[in-house]
C-alpha cells in the first residue's frame, strides 16, 4: 500500500502546490472561465455584491450577486483587502486552500468510517475468508488524495469561486451523518442547501445514514448467515436520530434565516433574498454559457414554453431520487455520490467544482468498483472534454471562426460522460452485491 506511506507528504505537497500557484492566479485568469466560476459562485460577483452593500444598497440590486448573504459577511471584507503587488483575491484564495484541506480530511474520515463498517460486516458474513477478501486498497486515503490532486479541484481553488465552501458543506453533512453527529449533519445539510439548493436531495442519504448506519451489503444477506439477534441488530431503522435531525434542521434553518435577515436589514428582506438566490437557480435567468446543458436549451426555447420546460428539467432530477433510494437503500454513501453526480449533470449552473467533489467521492468506493467497465474510456473522456472545452470557447468567443454549437457540443459530451459514469458505477455496485451473494451461497 503505497498510499499510506506517501499519504502525508502528498497532502502537504498538494497544499504547497496550491500556495505556489496562488500568486499566479490572476495571470491564469481562471476567475473568468465559464467552466470554473458560475454566476452563483463567482467571487467577482461577490465582491460586487459586497461593494453594493457597503454603499447601502441591497446586494441583490441589479443582477450581479446571487449567493448567500452569509458568504457576503464572511468573504466580503476579504475581497477588498489588498496586499501590495499581490493578486486581488489573495486572502480568499488562502481561505479556499484551507477549506480544501478540511474537505479532504473529512473525506478521509468518511472513508475510514466506511472501511470500518465494511470490515465489521465482512466479519459478520464470512469470518473465515476475511483476510483474503479484504485485500483492497486504502480507499479513504485514495479518495482524499483524489480530492486534493484532482486538477478540477486545483482549478476551482485558484479560480476565485466559492465552490470549495459548497463542497465542504456537502461533505460535512455526509460526515456528520456517517459518524452520527446529528447537529453537524443538520448544519452541513442546511448550509449546503442554503448555498446551492441542489444538495437538498441529500436529505435522503443523510436520513438513511442516520437510520441504518453506513454502507453495508444488502440486508437480505445477513439473516441467511446470522439468524440470531447479533446480525439483525445492524439493520433496524432507528427513529431517534431522525427526530433529532429534524429538530436540528429546524433550529439551524431558523438560525440561518435569522442571520440573513439581520444582515439584509434595511433592504428588501428575506423574500427578496429567496427570490434572488433560489429563484435564480430555479428559473435559469442567466443564460451565459457554461458546461451544463440548460443554458443552450433555454436560449433557444420559446418564451411561452419556458415555464413548462423549467418544470421538466428540474423534475428530471427529482424523478430519479425515489427509484435510486429504494434500490441503493443499503448503501447511503454511494447513494449520496449518485445524487451529487446526477445533480451536477442536470443543475442549472454547473462547474468543474461539482465534478471535483463527486470524483473524489467515487474514490471512496475504489474496492467495490474495481470491476468497473469503461474506466479507461471515462478517464480519456474527462481529459479530452476538459481540454476541448476551453479551446472551443476560444474558437467561439475570441477567434470568431466557431459558434455556440461548438462549445455546447463539449457540454453535451461532458453530460454524456457523467451519465455513463453514473450508469456504470451503479451497475458495478449492484454486480458487486450480487457477487457477494453468490460467494456466500457457495460457502
Amino acid at each position: 500500500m503505497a498510499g499510506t506511506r506517501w499519504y502525508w507528504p502528498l497532502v502537504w505537497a498538494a497544499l504547497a502546490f496550491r500556495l505556489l500557484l496562488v500568486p499566479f492566479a490572476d495571470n491564469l485568469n481562471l476567475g473568468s472561465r465559464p467552466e470554473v466560476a458560475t454566476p452563483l459562485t463567482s467571487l467577482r460577483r461577490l465582491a460586487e455584491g459586497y461593494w453594493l452593500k457597503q454603499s447601502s444598497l441591497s446586494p441583490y440590486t441589479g443582477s450581479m450577486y446571487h449567493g448567500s448573504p452569509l458568504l457576503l459577511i464572511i468573504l466580503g471584507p476579504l475581497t477588498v483587502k489588498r496586499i501590495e503587488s499581490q493578486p486581488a483575491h489573495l486572502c480568499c484564495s488562502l481561505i479556499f486552500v484551507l477549506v480544501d484541506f478540511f474537505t479532504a480530511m473529512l473525506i478521509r474520515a468518511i472513508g475510514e468510517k466506511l472501511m470500518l463498517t465494511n470490515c465489521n460486516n465482512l466479519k459478520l458474513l464470512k469470518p473465515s475468508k476475511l483476510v483474503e477478501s479484504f485485500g483492497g486498497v486504502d480507499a479513504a486515503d485514495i479518495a482524499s488524495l483524489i480530492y486534493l490532486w484532482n486538477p478540477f479541484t486545483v482549478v476551482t481553488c485558484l479560480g476565485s469561486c466559492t465552490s470549495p465552501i459548497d463542497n465542504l458543506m456537502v461533505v460535512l453533512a455526509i460526515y456528520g451523518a456517517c459518524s452520527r453527529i446529528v447537529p453537524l449533519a443538520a448544519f452541513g445539510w442546511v448550509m449546503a442547501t442554503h448555498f446551492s439548493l441542489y444538495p437538498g436531495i441529500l436529505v435522503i442519504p443523510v436520513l438513511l445514514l442516520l437510520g441504518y448506519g453506513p454502507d453495508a451489503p444488502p440486508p437480505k444477506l445477513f439473516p441467511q448467515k446470522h439468524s440470531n439477534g447479533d446480525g439483525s441488530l445492524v439493520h433496524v431503522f432507528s427513529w431517534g436520530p431522525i427526530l433529532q435531525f429534524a429538530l436540528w434542521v429546524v433550529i439551524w434553518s431558523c438560525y440561518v434565516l435569522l442571520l440573513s435577515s439581520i444582515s439584509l436589514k434595511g433592504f428588501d428582506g428575506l423574500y427578496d433574498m429567496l427570490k434572488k438566490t433560489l429563484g435564480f437557480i430555479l428559473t435559469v435567468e442567466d443564460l451565459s454559457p457554461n458546461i451544463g446543458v440548460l443554458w443552450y436549451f433555454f436560449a433557444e426555447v420559446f418564451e411561452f414554453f419556458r415555464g413548462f420546460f423549467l418544470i421538466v428539467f428540474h423534475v428530471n432530477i427529482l424523478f430519479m431520487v425515489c427509484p435510486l433510494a429504494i434500490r441503493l437503500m443499503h448503501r447511503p454513501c454511494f447513494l449520496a455520490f449518485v445524487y451529487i453526480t446526477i445533480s451536477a449533470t442536470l443543475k442549472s449552473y454547473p462547474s468543474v467544482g461539482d465534478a471535483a467533489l463527486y470524483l473524489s467521492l467515487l474514490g471512496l468506493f475504489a474496492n467495490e468498483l474495481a470491476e468497473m467497465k469503461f474506466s479507461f474510456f471515462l478517464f480519456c473522456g474527462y481529459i479530452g472534454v476538459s481540454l476541448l472545452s476551453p479551446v472551443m470557447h476560444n474558437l467561439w468567443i475570441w477567434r470568431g471562426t466557431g459558434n455556440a454549437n461548438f462549445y455546447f457540443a463539449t457540454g453535451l459530451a461532458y453530460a454524456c460522460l457523467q451519465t455513463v459514469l453514473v450508469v456504470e458505477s451503479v451497475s458495478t455496485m449492484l454486480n458487486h452485491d450480487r457477487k457477494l451473494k453468490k460467494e456466500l451461497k457457495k460457502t
Partner: protein
Amino acid sequence: MEEQKPPAARKSRLIVRLGSFLVSHSAFVSVICCVAGCITLLLLPVLAKNTYVSENALMPGSANPMFSNQDVVEANRFVKDIYETGILKDGSGMEIARLIGKHMEDVGAEVYYHKFKYRNLQFHPLCFFSSIPRTAVPQNSSACTLNGVSPVGIIRAPRGDGKESIVLVTPYNSENIKLNEALSLGLAYSVFSLLSRVVWLAKDIVWLAADSRYGEYTSVASWLKDYHNPTFSSDSGKIGIEMCFEKTENHVEEQSSFDGAAYDDFKRAGTMSAALVVKVMDKERSERDRVDIYAEASNGQMPNLDLINIVHYLAVHRQGLHVRVGTFGFLLNSALLKHVGKTLQRLTRLAESLNLGWKLGVNSADFVEGTATLASSMYYQALGVPTGPHGAFRDFQIDAITMELSPRTSLTNDNGISSFLLRSGRLIEGVIRSVNNLLEKFHQSFFLYFLTAPNKFVSVGVYMIAFALLVAPLPIVAAALFSSTANARSLTTISNNKPTNSKPVTRSGSWNWLHSAKLVFLVHLWALIVSLLPYFVSQIPHTNSTTSMLSWSLSSLLILYLLTRLTKSYVEGYQWEVLKSVMIAAASIGLSLMSIINFSTAQVGSILLVPMCLMVRPLKQPIQVPIFPAALLKILNILLAVVAFPPASLAILKGCLRGFESINIGDFWEWSEFLWVWNSATYLFVALVHLPCWYLCVHILLHN
C-alpha cells in the same frame, strides 16, 4: 458473466457487432485507413472547388470605377514629394510622417499620429492563446528614437454612423524609404483622396501609414492594440507627439505652426469590417501586372474566403491583373509529382472512357501546380506564424489580407507605372466599395480552407476526411490492444487462481491501465518542463543558438534522469500493450485537440505520429509472422523512431531542401525560438504531444 456472454454476443445490436468487428481486425483496418488517408491527402488538389462570392451584398464590380487618370497624376506627384523628402533629409523619419499627415488633412481627413514603442518580441511563458496581451508597457518613453510614428487619417463617411470602418494599411520604412514604398504610399493616398470625395461611402475609411522601421507587423499590431484598448487622458506618462517633432526638428518657425496636441489623441472609427494591406513590390517581370495575395494569420487562421474572392474577381475580371498566391517553387519541378499527375490523368481518362457520363477532367499540370500551392498554404498555416502585417488584424477577428502589387515594367518607367497605378487604384477602390456594401461582418463564406489556386479552394468538409482517415485507426487500435490484454488477463486469472505471491497486485480488473497511465503522465510532465525550459535558457547571457540548444537538451536529459530515478519504484508492473494503448489514447486526444486549434499542424504531425504509434512494438518481442515482414517491421520502427524525433526531422527536412552541409546544431533552437516568439501553437504541439509520444515509442521499442 462468463455464462451469459455467448448469447449476449449473438443478440447484440448491429453497432456493437460492427465495433467489435473493427476492433478484431484492427491491423487490417488501420492499414486501410492510413493508406486511404494519405491518398485522400494527395488527391486534395483534385477535389478543390472553384471559389464563388458567397455574400450577395458584396456585389463586386457592379459599379464603374471612379478612379481616373487625374488621381494617377496626383499619386505620382505625391510619390515624387515623398521620395524627394526621404532622399534629401536622410534619417528624418518624422518629416515623411508629417508630409503624409499634411496631405491627409488636405483631403479633409481627421489626422493623428500614432506613436508606439518598439518592443522586441521575446520569450514569455503563459502567453499562449491569450488574445489580449496583458503585459503592462513600461512607460519610460523619453527616448523618441525608440518610438515609431505612424500617421493615421480617418475619412468620416457621409452616409455612415461612424460605427464601422475599413482599414487601408501601407507600410513604409521611415528611415530609409524606397521607391516601391513611396509608390504604395502614393497609391493609397490617391485612393484615399478619391474616397474623401465620393458620396456612396457608408463606412469610415482609416488609412494607416505604418512606420515599418521595426518591422511591419509590430507597428500594425501596436496600433490595433491601442485601438481596441481604452485609453484615458489621465495615464499620460506618455509624451505628446510634438515633443518627438521638437527633438528631430530644428525649424522653429515650422514648429510654431504645428499644433501637436490636436494630433495626439487617439481617434477611432468603430469596428473594422475588413483591412487591406497594400504594398508595391518590384518583382521579376511578367507580361501582366501582378497581385500576390497573402492571407495566413497566426495559428493557421485565415480571413473569410469572400475577401479573397472579391480581390480575385476584381483583379482578374475587371482590371486584368495576374493573381497569385504562395507556391512552393521546388515542388513545381518535382519529377515525382509530375509522374503522379500523369498517372492520375491517365487513370481519369480511363475512367472517362469506361463511363462517358463521368467528367473528372484531371490535368497533370494543374495537379502539380495545385499541389505546390496547397503545400505552401498548408505549410504557412502549420507554422502558425503570420505571413504579413495582416496577421495582426486576425487576432481581433478582423478579416485582412496583404496585397503585394508588382508592375510589369520597372518602377522608374513612367508610362508603365501610370497604367499600373490606374489598375491598382481601381482594384483597391472596387474592393473597398464591395466591403462598403457589407451589411454585417464577413460570415457567409468559409474561414477554414486551403487554397490550391487563387480561385480554387478545399473546404474544411473535404480536407477533414484525410485527417479523419489518418486518425481513425488510433482509437480502434487502442481499443483492440486494451481488450486483448483484458482478455488475456482474465484467462490467466482463471487458470491460476491460487494466490502465488503475497505481493499486492493493487488494482485488479479494469483499473489495470493505471500503472501505464502513471508513466504516460510522468512523460508528459517531463515534456511540459522541457517546453518551459527555453524561457530559462534564454535568460543566460552571451549564448548563441548552439550553446542554447546544447544546454536545453542537457538540462532536459538531466530532468528526465532525475524523474526516472525518483519514481522508479512508482512506475512498474505495466504491460507494453497497455502502455501502448494509453499512449495512443493520449496521442489521439492531442491530435484531435490540435486539429481544432490549427488543423494543418495536426495534419502534418499526424503523418509522422500515426504510423509511429501504430507500428511500435518491442524489438525483442518475437512476432508470429514470417521472417521478412517481421524484419521489415523492425526496420520501419527504427527508421520512424529516428525520423520522428523533432530535431532530427527538422534536420532531415532542412538537409533535403538546402543540402546537408547547412545543418547546424542550433537550428532546432532557432526554429523553436521563432515559433515561441510568434506564440505559435505548433510549438506546444511539438513539445507537449509529439515529444512525449516519441519518447514513449522509444520506451516501448526498448522494452523487454
